[in-house]
């Protein structure tokens, strides 16, 4: 996967309001997002897959995601897969915790708070595995810190509500096709001095394909359209 804006892992919690396990997912997600791996993770509210825009629905195709569910209905995992993309990992509280005394959805008991610790730790391990980094416990940071792309960090903050993934609509054989992350890819290529041309097209398409499935037999048409858009992008920036 290319080094686009700093690679992060998306966390999607079910947040189920009616059960203590739902609160465990919510607090465990927040523990990871705010304390354990704040620079490596980002989240989105589950309902935004339906209520939000195309950029929101692209979330799990852009970020490798970890779904955290309170029960075996697995709303977060199934909802993410249904509307966005298959989660890279899935954790269910009732599988991870062997107690029924978590408190209430509104107020977790001590056992409930311990469950938050356990689930948060599991999520953190998954984050590290997905990012392929070793966590330096002494330093309190990953041993190989990735560098965020200039100017992009603020756009993709902890909460993705309303920001979504940048989408660009491209005319292709008379139809409008949405490309995920295309503006970011163009920006990265241009910043690297890779100008439009035959040498760049192949590499550009390899990157584009990471986030955008290309139908069989349409590679050439897609490459032509992306190259055209990239040329226009570079001309606009000059």
């Amino acid at each position, binding site marked *: 996967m290319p080094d686009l804006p700093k690679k992060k892992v998306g966390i999607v919690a079910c947040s189920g*309001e009616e059960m203590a396990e739902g609160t465990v997912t919510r607090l465990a997600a*927040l523990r990871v997002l705010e304390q354990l791996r704040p620079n490596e993770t980002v989240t989105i509210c589950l*309902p*935004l897959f*339906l*209520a*939000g825009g195309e950029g929101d629905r692209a979330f799990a195709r852009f970020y490798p995601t970890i779904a955290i569910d309170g029960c075996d209905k697995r*709303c977060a995992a199934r909802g993410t897969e249904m509307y966005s993309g298959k989660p890279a990992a899935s954790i269910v509280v009732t599988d991870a915790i062997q107690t029924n005394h978590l408190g209430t959805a509104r107020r977790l008991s001590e056992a409930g708070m311990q469950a938050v610790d356990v689930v948060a730790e599991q999520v953190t391990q998954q984050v590290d595995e997905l990012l392929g980094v070793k966590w330096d416990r002494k330093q309190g940071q990953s041993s190989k810190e990735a560098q965020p792309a200039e100017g992009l960090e603020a756009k993709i903050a902890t*909460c993705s509500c309303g920001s979504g993934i940048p989408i660009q609509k491209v005319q292709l054989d008379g139809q409008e096709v949405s490309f995920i992350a295309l503006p970011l890819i163009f920006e990265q290529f241009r910043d690297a001095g890779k100008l439009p041309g035959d040498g760049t097209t192949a590499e550009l398409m390899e990157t584009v394909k990471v986030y955008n499935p290309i139908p069989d037999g349409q590679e050439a048409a897609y490459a032509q359209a992306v190259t055209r858009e990239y040329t226009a992008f570079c001309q606009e920036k000059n």
Partner: protein
Amino acid sequence: MNRVVIVPCSGIGKSYGTVAREGAYVVTEDLRPDTTQLVPLSLLVLGDEQARADVSGAQAITIDGCKLACATKMVAESGGTVAHDLAVLDVYRRHRNLKPAGIAELNKGGQRLAQALAEEVATLVDEMTGEVKNA
């Protein structure tokens, strides 16, 4: 009469989402436990049959934490009737001294804002059910 369905946003990125959630608990557990019912948004996202039935067979009050209004949109999409849609930000505008902070744990201002929100919802519930109570 069916209970009034309360659907809060399940926002996880902002304090307003937590206020919506906490306010919904105050209404359904403390203020109007006999006339309201909490329906989780995640079940509506998944199209859970029971949750959809609960929503489609009753009047709903939605509580949204941001302008994207997920709760309101999801209830409408699930075949429900949104009798009232409240935005936490609007409630905050009416109570500017109650500034919420924190997501995992609300500050005092956030807790009091959730209580104020819940009292507004309770009043609406009473109007809908024809009951008069002191919130």
